[in-house]
């Protein structure tokens, strides 16, 4: 009877070379996350929605009166509040995804020993990685929809292209989440985790979020343009302001590469850490 089992299994695994990495059951990991969120402090999670709105109200209204209008990278002159809103949307996607895929993952890895338990079942490392990342995306999407509604109410979606900002935001979140989880797998102490903040804060402040990067000298501009958030901000801003161009596909490509590299990295690391 046992030998029948193994013949069956062997034929299945020929069909699916990823079998030892992926059991096709990432949804169970997502369900766990959803249940954990629901039964613990969902208020904390809901509150994440307010962060970009606070920024929008404060800087949009208060600073808007000082700044007036801004010229975007495509030469359009728009009110300051319409300039920062897409940037805040992209940043919110980044923050949500990074928080979920770094601090949360770090805690689960080192304190709750959650992945150890998951990987002693029939789940593979890619199930765990995908499940966690997709849940982070779901949360990111929730924030994004909320923020887009606020933008719509304030008249900050200047074009019908804005509707595409939603998938764009998911792309951004996916990129950051898959990469963040991979990076986190290398972290061993809270002090090392702080380096994530050291990278995030400059990226947030400098990536054409609050003013066009034309204020910088050339070499700083190159540096900023190599960073992922700048691509996200430009992509979302292009969509909400309706300044569509074929060059925006480069931003999309940037994130696609980031997603693939991040997933490969994360899966390999989970395998090395828990199934060595």
């Amino acid at each position, binding site marked *: 009877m046992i030998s029948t*089992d*193994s013949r069956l299994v062997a034929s299945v695994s020929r069909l699916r070379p990823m079998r030892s990495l992926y*059991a096709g059951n990432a949804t169970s990991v997502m*369900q766990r996350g959803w249940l954990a969120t629901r*039964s613990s402090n969902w208020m904390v999670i809901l509150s994440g929605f307010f962060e970009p709105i606070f920024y929008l109200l404060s800087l949009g209204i208060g600073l808007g009166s000082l700044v007036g209008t801004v010229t975007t990278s495509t030469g359009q002159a728009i009110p300051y509040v319409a300039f920062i809103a897409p940037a805040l949307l992209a940043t919110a996607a980044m923050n949500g995804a990074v928080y979920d895929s770094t601090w949360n993952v770090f805690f689960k890895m080192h304190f709750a*020993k959650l992945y150890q338990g998951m990987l*002693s079942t*029939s789940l593979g490392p890619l199930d765990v990685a995908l499940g966690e990342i997709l849940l982070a995306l779901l949360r990111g999407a929730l924030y994004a929809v909320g923020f887009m509604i606020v933008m719509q109410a304030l008249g900050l979606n200047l074009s019908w292209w804005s509707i595409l900002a939603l998938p764009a935001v998911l792309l951004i979140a996916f990129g950051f989440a898959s990469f963040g989880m991979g990076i986190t797998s290398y972290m061993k102490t809270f002090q090392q985790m702080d380096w994530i903040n050291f990278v995030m804060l400059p990226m947030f402040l400098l990536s054409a979020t609050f003013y066009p990067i034309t204020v910088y000298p050339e070499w700083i501009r190159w540096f900023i343009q190599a960073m992922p958030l700048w691509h996200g901000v430009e992509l979302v801003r292009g969509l909400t302001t309706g300044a569509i161009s074929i060059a925006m596909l480069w931003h999309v490509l940037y994130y696609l590469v980031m997603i693939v590299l991040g997933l490969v990295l994360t899966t390999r690391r989970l395998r090395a850490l828990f*199934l060595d």
Partner: protein
Amino acid sequence: MPAPVIAATNLVKKYKDFAAVDGISFEVAPGESFGLLGPNGAGKSTTMRMVGAVSTRTSGDLSVLDLDPNQFGPEIRSQLGVVPQSDNLDSELRVRDNLIVYGRYFGLPLSHVKARADELLAFAQLEDKAKSKVDDLSGGMKRRLTIARALINDPRILLLDEPTTGLDPQARHILWDRLFRLKEQGTTLVLTTHYMDEAEQLCDRLVVVDKGTIMAEGSPAALIREYSSREVLEVRFGSEKNAEVAGMLDGIGERVDVLPDRILVYSDNGEAELVRMTERGLHPITSLVRRSSLEDVFLRLTGRSLIE
């Protein structure tokens, strides 16, 4: 004899230069209760991790349910229940949700998992804790929940790594009772322990492991017969004098071991040896005659005490 469910031949696991497991061979028959007895760091947990298909062996052969864990990790794990050394319950979820979510990891249908979770809560005597938070459970309850969780997929083999370490005596006995029931139902149990009483209670057969290798193999009774005497006389003369007295015990007992705090005299009749000792004018501060245990077997095999 039916085909073994686990078969290991010359199993080796090296971490850089250190061999945590250094050429272990054993077989486990279906329905058997098999133990790995040894001190901390002997390589028991590493062996368990390899059997559990979450650690890749360095060399040797291993088959679990006739499959190679290196290739068929998820397949093997789908048939196992794992109780790790330290509980890794999901403290963000309530007790019953822990079981349900874990069942979903095996791809089991929700309705099945829910029904099974309720059965297992009853089995683990945790029905009234179904809605509690994991952190509010006592150590013994957490352990029983971990075992219940390991049973959610009706595993063919249950792996238990140090199942009762850190529990108080009452909690241990409750847990043993539950494991007995599983054994009666025909579940194959593989457990590691450094408690000899646990090994004697639960194991049909065991291997004594030290420094990554197997020192002896057999049923608890056979091991005691082979490596120890029927009874052991423990005497204390005070930590300064034990070694000195040991020199004067020629001809007493089958064998004598001197430990820092006491002397062990192996014999089929401990009381008689104590009488002979006092006849020589040696009066211990305390004396105790007890049945021989696996602790004595281990001491005999390695020259070291099991719990250090």
